[in-house]
């Protein structure tokens, strides 16, 4: 059976579309947005606005996720020694150019929290370095005293 038999007769181009035709044309788009048959045909007519808005939000989120994934891939490729060409022996990825230790912050608040956390870690590391150095100095002095004695 030919598929064309199932289609309705083509309407005159000059004739405005009926409401039923407008609804039928729009229906697949709203199905794609996740609306059900009952919601579209039997539900409140205004519901489509909420679906459109939700679809915009979903699309923006997806766009953001894809962009973010691209950034992660870029970071991974950027810090691969393979791309440096012929790196010298002992080549190290420059600091800050490595693959991020954590996912990118999703909000300014999260970014600030990370910054504070990073500062705290830097301070701890600095204190640990100082302690280690003073310990080393003390041991050196002790050794010198022993050697002199």
């Amino acid at each position, binding site marked *: 059976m030919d598929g064309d038999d199932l289609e309705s007769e083509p309407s005159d181009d000059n004739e405005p579309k009926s*409401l039923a035709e*407008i*609804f039928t044309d729009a229906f697949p788009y709203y199905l794609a947005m996740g609306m059900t048959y009952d919601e579209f045909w*039997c539900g409140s*007519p*205004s*519901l*489509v*606005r909420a679906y459109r*808005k939700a679809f915009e939000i979903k699309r923006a989120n997806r766009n953001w996720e894809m962009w973010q994934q691209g950034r992660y891939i870029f970071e991974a490729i950027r810090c691969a020694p393979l791309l440096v060409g012929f790196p010298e022996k002992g080549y190290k990825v420059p600091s800050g150019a490595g693959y991020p230790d954590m996912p990118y912050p999703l909000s300014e608040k999260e970014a600030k929290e990370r910054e504070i956390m990073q500062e705290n870690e830097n301070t701890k590391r600095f204190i640990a370095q100082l302690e280690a150095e003073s310990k080393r100095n003390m041991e050196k002095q002790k050794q010198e005293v022993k050697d002199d004695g």
Partner: protein
Amino acid sequence: MSDIKTANCINFDYNGKHYCLEYSREAVKRMEAAGFKPGESGTTPLIELDMLWAGAFYKNHRKESSRVIEQILDKMKDKPKLLEALRNMVAETYNSLLDEDEGDEGNVEWTATI
């Protein structure tokens, strides 16, 4: 008879029963199949009002007898305003597909009085 006002809906009580009249796209499609043509200049307001009124029962009160539907319409006051409200409610079924409106614009505010 209590009068309750909501957007895109006509609410009223008749003979102890609560009615909430609104349109769905399916109802408008059926009205079209029955001969209703929105914005058609040839249709007289009375015929248009009859069709719109009967169609407004389809979504929530489709089992209501046509006799009762007619009785309620006869008792409705301010028919020009009612006709305008019903037209706007039908328009909402397709305007909502086309516009970018996110607010209350175009919503019908109607106080039904019998």
